[in-house]
């Protein structure tokens, strides 16, 4: 094929691997980065940007926790506190977590993992990054020039008629960011459908490509709905079109329906790629073919599909029809099943593996524990009778931090440590990584477990003060203490990872003995990824050719099986002869 045409002509066949510049060295000017079409560079740009947003969101989290140490008269005025938690929610959801795994690792690794030279539409990809940046800047401007006081859910009529400040600008920011994620998803879908290397069949895709595919479907089906819904709120604020306005006989609950029709699937946008990453890490670090490949792959699609049918579980007591509440509760219980499938398949993968407890693996194991707890507490909320009490309390706050921070952020950190050598060509100190992963785990539980109890006790969320209910204070103090640990634990990787850029040992092409195609190219990869379009001949997750122990076992198993068969044949022959 024409692939060879793109190889630098002056390089000799054998030396290609050594001499071709990596994507990092292919142009050093600022322009070569800002106008790049290279999916890897765009991935890095995303990584830097989301890190900044994560920092901003965390700062807000710090303020929240500091405020809640005292029941009253604390750091912030009520109004400021409200702005802070809104900023925290908006930044963390729209500008950090929804983008984190798909846009960073999706961009960087997806084409490598399926054996493509780039995403299908590199320029669209760059546009998508800038849309995201624009959205982020708009939202940040909104936060800095007055802030928004609506909560990240933008419930009407508060957000449309009663709340002042920069709601319009913030919404437009989220809207623009929404188009960025649509563009990314369209790109991924076209890429996964049309650009797989020969032999990379659907059944051989890495599991996290499957989950990225499922995520992309959710994005293109859900995001436009929230986009138009938020746009209608803007219309109400700016042009006074009263579409959800109760004053005109409109229904504010309709806004919630439309909002959650996207925003519940959105929580799966945040967790599906995380689950995919975990599948890959678990398989790699146990050097073990993943248990139940089809089930894991299929459960991603099932989660994506069923995820669209449970939005009403955020509205059990919103005055939606109680019959609909019952149906939504039922489906919410069902959507837990595909998650259960994943959890158990991962656990089974560990069985008879060759487990290496390196940093990504520690994060992955932490993910399993925290996501299980977070997911199961989701069932308290999916259960109608208990949700009536628990809704909008700190129990919900704890639930979603368990799945989002304990789940997705842990997976994000795992993914970062997993692909860091590939992205930068450098190793980081593994011991630091491991210890830090444990620190995150401990700090996290300390922060958010007390919040389950707070919620059960009835502490409502989004409260700036609670001087009328001082019994909540001890648990809040505990939670803040945990957050301090967490703050440190989130800061440490930043330092050792940055340091590794300069001082880290050079990474080999495949430091983890992983099977994905991205590990067959140099670390860091050359601009056009592959010299020859790779041809895939193995199933995904076959470690025999990479890990001697696995090969030994495969061979002894095979020998034994052969022996058994031979023995059987012999016995058969003997018995026929006896007749």
């Amino acid at each position, binding site marked *: 094929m024409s692939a060879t045409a793109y190889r630098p002509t002056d390089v000799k066949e054998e030396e290609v691997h050594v001499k071709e510049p990596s994507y990092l060295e292919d142009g050093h000017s600022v322009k070569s980065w800002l106008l790049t079409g290279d999916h890897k560079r765009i991935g890095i740009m995303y990584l830097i940007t989301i890190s900044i947003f994560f920092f901003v969101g965390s700062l807000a989290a710090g303020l929240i926790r500091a405020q809640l140490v005292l029941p009253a008269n604390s750091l912030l005025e009520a109004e400021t506190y409200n702005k802070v938690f809104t900023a925290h929610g908006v930044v963390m959801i729209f500008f950090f977590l929804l983008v984190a795994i798909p846009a960073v690792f999706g961009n960087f690794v997806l084409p490598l993992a399926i054996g493509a030279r780039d995403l299908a539409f590199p320029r669209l990809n760059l546009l998508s990054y800038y849309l995201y940046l624009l959205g982020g800047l708009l939202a940040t401007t909104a936060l800095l020039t007055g802030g928004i006081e609506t909560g990240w859910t933008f419930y009407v009529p508060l957000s449309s008629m009663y709340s002042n400040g920069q709601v319009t600008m913030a919404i437009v920011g989220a809207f623009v960011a929404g188009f960025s994620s649509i563009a990314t998803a369209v790109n991924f879908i076209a890429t996964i459908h049309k650009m797989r290397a020969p032999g990379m069949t659907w059944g051989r895709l890495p599991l996290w490509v499957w989950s990225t595919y499922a995520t992309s479907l959710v994005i293109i089906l859900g995001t436009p709905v929230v986009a138009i819904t938020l746009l209608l709120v803007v219309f109400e604020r700016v042009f006074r079109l009263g579409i959800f306005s109760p004053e005109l006989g409109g229904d504010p609950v309709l806004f919630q329906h439309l909002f959650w029709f996207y925003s519940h699937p959105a929580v799966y946008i945040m967790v599906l790629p995380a689950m995919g990453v975990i599948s890959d890490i678990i398989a790699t670090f146990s050097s073990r073919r993943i*248990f139940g*490949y089809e089930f894991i792959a299929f459960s991603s699609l099932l989660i994506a599909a069923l995820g669209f049918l449970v939005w009403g579980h955020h509205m059990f007591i919103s005055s939606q029809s109680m019959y609909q509440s019952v149906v939504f509760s039922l489906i919410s219980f069902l959507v837990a099943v595909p998650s259960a499938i994943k959890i*158990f398949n991962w656990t089974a993968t560990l069985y008879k593996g*060759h487990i290496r407890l390196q940093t990504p693996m520690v994060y992955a194991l932490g993910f399993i524990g925290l996501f299980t707890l977070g997911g199961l507490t989701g*069932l308290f909320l999916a259960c109608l*009778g208990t949700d009536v009490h628990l809704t909008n309390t700190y129990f919900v706050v704890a639930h979603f931090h368990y799945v989002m921070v304990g789940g997705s952020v842990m997976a994000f950190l795992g993914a970062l440590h997993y692909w860091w050598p590939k992205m930068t060509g450098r190793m980081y100190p593994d011991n630091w990584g491991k210890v830090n992963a444990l620190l995150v785990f401990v700090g996290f539980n300390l922060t958010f477990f007390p919040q389950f109890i707070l919620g059960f*006790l009835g502490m409502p969320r989004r409260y700036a003060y609670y001087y009328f209910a001082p019994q909540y204070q001890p648990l809040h103090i505990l939670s803040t203490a945990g957050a301090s640990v967490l703050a440190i634990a989130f800061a440490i990787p930043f330092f050792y990872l940055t340091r590794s850029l300069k001082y880290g040992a050079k990474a080999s092409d495949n430091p983890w003995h992983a099977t994905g195609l991205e590990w067959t190219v140099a670390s860091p990869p050359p601009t056009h990824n592959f010299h020859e379009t790779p041809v895939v001949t193995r199933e995904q997750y076959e470690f025999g050719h990479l890990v001697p122990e696995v090969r030994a076992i495969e061979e002894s198993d095979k020998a034994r099986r052969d022996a058994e068969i031979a023995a059987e044949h012999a016995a058969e022959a003997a018995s026929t002869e006896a007749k």
Partner: protein
Amino acid sequence: MGTVPIAPEQASNFAYWHDLIFYTLSALTAVFTILVGVLVISFVIKYKKGSNADRSNPPHESKIMEFTWIVIPTGLGLVMFFAGAKLFLDMRTPPANAMEVYVIGKQWMWHSQHSNGVRENNTLHVPLGKPVKLTMISQDVIHAFYIPEFRTQYHVVPGRYTQQWFVPTRVGRYQLFCNVYCGTQHSEMGGYVYVMPPDDFEKWLENGGDTVKPMSLEQSGQKVYNRLGCNNCHGAKSNMRAPSLAGIYQSKRRMTDNSVAVADEAYLRESILRPYNRVNYGYEKQMPEYAGTVTEEEVLQLISYMKTLGGAGDVEGAPKTLEMDPRKGSSPVPPTSSTVGAAGAISAQSNATPGQRPDQNSVGALAAQAPSKN
């Protein structure tokens, strides 16, 4: 700090059932989390790379296993679903003989009205052991009427009535929260639900809502204060709606025309009856004129109550001495406001994040407090 509670009291007919389901779910959660945790940890230990465990014939799939862990969670889930749905349907089906109370939510107060016309603000009195049905509506944004000890809440929506019901099962005073974010003072939109023995309740209702008789002037003043909803606007701290009344008595107040007035009895009286005669610096003519609405007696009571609202710097303020709602009007004065510098700092901070309602000049409002506080 005393003991840290880990479970709320059970004070309604739903509480027991709720807790039963809650604890069952907790047990399930514990079982599954521990199961997964133990499996993961033991596998990691046993199959750590280099350990000499038996690794022959590693399985790659098993229909039976998959089936098991699909069916068991589905089954358990369905059981919990039915339990929860049953309780929920009960919660949504008020009995025909329920006593009806109307509730209005608005930024940021609760207003309730009993069938004989008795009105309350931020409180709700209900009889023990009788089903009570609340019919609720909001005047502005969405709120939720939440009583944790009753394990029940429901949204209060503008434009239509919503309902919830319960049977209180224990005498006492229970926290009432607004539990849908509704704007700046969401956290302070609350009060108490009082569960009274039925006889006491009847009497209370007949006496037009008076809880205890006889009352001191201050106490009646507090009642009037609450009934008229002064605390709807006047909070613990000055906010965009109204200046704080904490420590107002004998303090200097700055007016829109920059004149200064000392808040003596006459000033207070005028401020209640004809608030527009002299408007506080930074505020607008927002406060209703109470002339014609309150009696002279009540004005007196109000003034004596306002005198008890802690002086500046008095951290605990009056609430200690009176059996009263610590939540409104009389809550601790911010220590920061005792000095000009600190108060100035507050307003500076607000300046940094302006986001006021366009109809109020709140930056000025906060700044105005600085000179007036000393």
